[in-house]
């Protein structure tokens, strides 16, 4: 299974994690949609990093300033050489999001625990509510050129103009525009429902099995290559609603299929759907500009 993935070492198994539970060079990082889950029981030694309260800067609508990220790592006992293994709920949505954010700051050795919280727990492996104390580390970030893995709205305009591929990983009803114009949904809503013109819809959940682990490389190729015609030579942008589900697909395309040019558009539909004069398409087909 996972050993046929392009960068197989980036996806680690529960057995691998068990062998490294006491390894001071390995730090487990749990990132969940629901932060209380960590406190209900986490893998021994894992630290919690909250996706909305610890990685994002609430004022700039961006990720943390570099010194704050460095402090977050230092407090969590992470040095630039640490192997960071991300896992969490929802088949690792948020874990992949945290992984992607760590990559923005240039953290070298990031991995994902296949199956995340669910597979670990359901295979009877230990969880604890005990605190994880690690000695403070030194951290100096070496941020990458963000354009390598992150797209902004202007990149999306350019992508449309160039006819390059976009992957919308939301649910089919979000893609068609049927959902999101929902009344009584004030915080989640955008002004318009639909998708970026030309984007193909692959709901993120199709990349994982019921047990939370990623699908095999052949199954993933059947979806992304045979079904929607992507290939490793393309420059691809993935998006969803706020950039978290698309982090997971970014991870799949980059590390499991080995595509070198994939960007995550973290502004995603929450930005695009509200953006003045940004073209959208409605309905089930990728569509042209409306």
């Amino acid at each position, binding site marked *: 299974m996972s050993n046929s993935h392009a960068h197989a070492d980036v996806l680690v198994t529960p057995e691998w994690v068990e062998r490294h539970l006491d390894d001071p060079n390995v730090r487990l990082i749990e990132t969940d*949609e629901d*932060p209380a*889950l960590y406190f209900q029981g986490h893998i021994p030694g894992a630290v919690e990093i909250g996706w*909305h309260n610890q990685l994002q800067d609430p004022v700039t609508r961006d990720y943390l300033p570099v010194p704050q990220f460095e402090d977050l790592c230092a407090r969590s006992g992470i040095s630039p050489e640490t192997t960071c293994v991300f896992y969490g*709920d929802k088949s690792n949505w948020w874990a992949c999001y945290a992984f992607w954010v760590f990559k923005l700051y240039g953290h070298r050795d990031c991995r994902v625990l296949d199956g995340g919280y*669910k597979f670990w727990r359901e295979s009877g492996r230990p969880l604890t509510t005990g605190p994880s104390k690690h000695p403070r580390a030194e951290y100096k970030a070496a941020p990458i050129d963000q354009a390598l893995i992150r797209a902004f709205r202007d990149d999306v305009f350019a992508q449309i103009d160039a006819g390059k591929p976009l992957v919308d990983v939301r649910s089919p009803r979000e893609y068609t525009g049927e959902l999101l114009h*929902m009344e*009584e949904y004030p915080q989640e809503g955008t002004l318009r429902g639909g998708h970026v013109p030309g984007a193909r819809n692959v709901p993120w959940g199709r990349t994982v099995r019921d047990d939370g682990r990623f699908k095999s490389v052949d199954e993933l190729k059947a979806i992304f290559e045979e079904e929607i015609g992507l290939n490793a030579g393309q420059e691809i942008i993935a998006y969803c609603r706020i950039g978290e589900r698309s982090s997971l697909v970014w991870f799949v395309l980059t590390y499991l299929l080995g595509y070198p040019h994939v960007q995550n558009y973290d502004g995603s539909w929450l930005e695009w759907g509200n953006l003045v004069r940004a073209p959208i398409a409605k309905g089930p087909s990728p569509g042209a500009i409306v």
Partner: protein
Amino acid sequence: MTEKLAGLVEELQSADRQERIELLIDLARSLPKLPDHLEAHKDATHRVEECQSPVYLFIDVQNGRVVFHADAPVEAPTVRGFVALLVEGLEGANAADVAALPDDLVRRAGLLEILGMQRIAGLDAVVRRLKRTTALLTSAPGNTQSLTS
């Protein structure tokens, strides 16, 4: 709102983030199991669509009292804890107590800081669903959502 619920909300509100998370985990653990006859009705009709996590509400009004059962996943302790807060806090409540629930109950309980702006709307929808269904059942008993539907 009932005194019981107001007390629980106050307790959450005055707690710091860590204590609040622990209170929610305790509440989540205390959520009673759904009766068997409702377990079979965990379907789209009873699911709160706005919630990312599957939350099921079963609401009925019997002799002026609101009878309220709910279920939410163990893997979403904040959501489950909030639902448990409503079930526990509204035990024996009447329709007027439910009608008087503040629309910003989720924020009052301090959950915005835990779940973040992006994930809090689903819980607001739980409160709205509870209020709306109770109002509907009070004006037209047996209309929808009853325990046997």
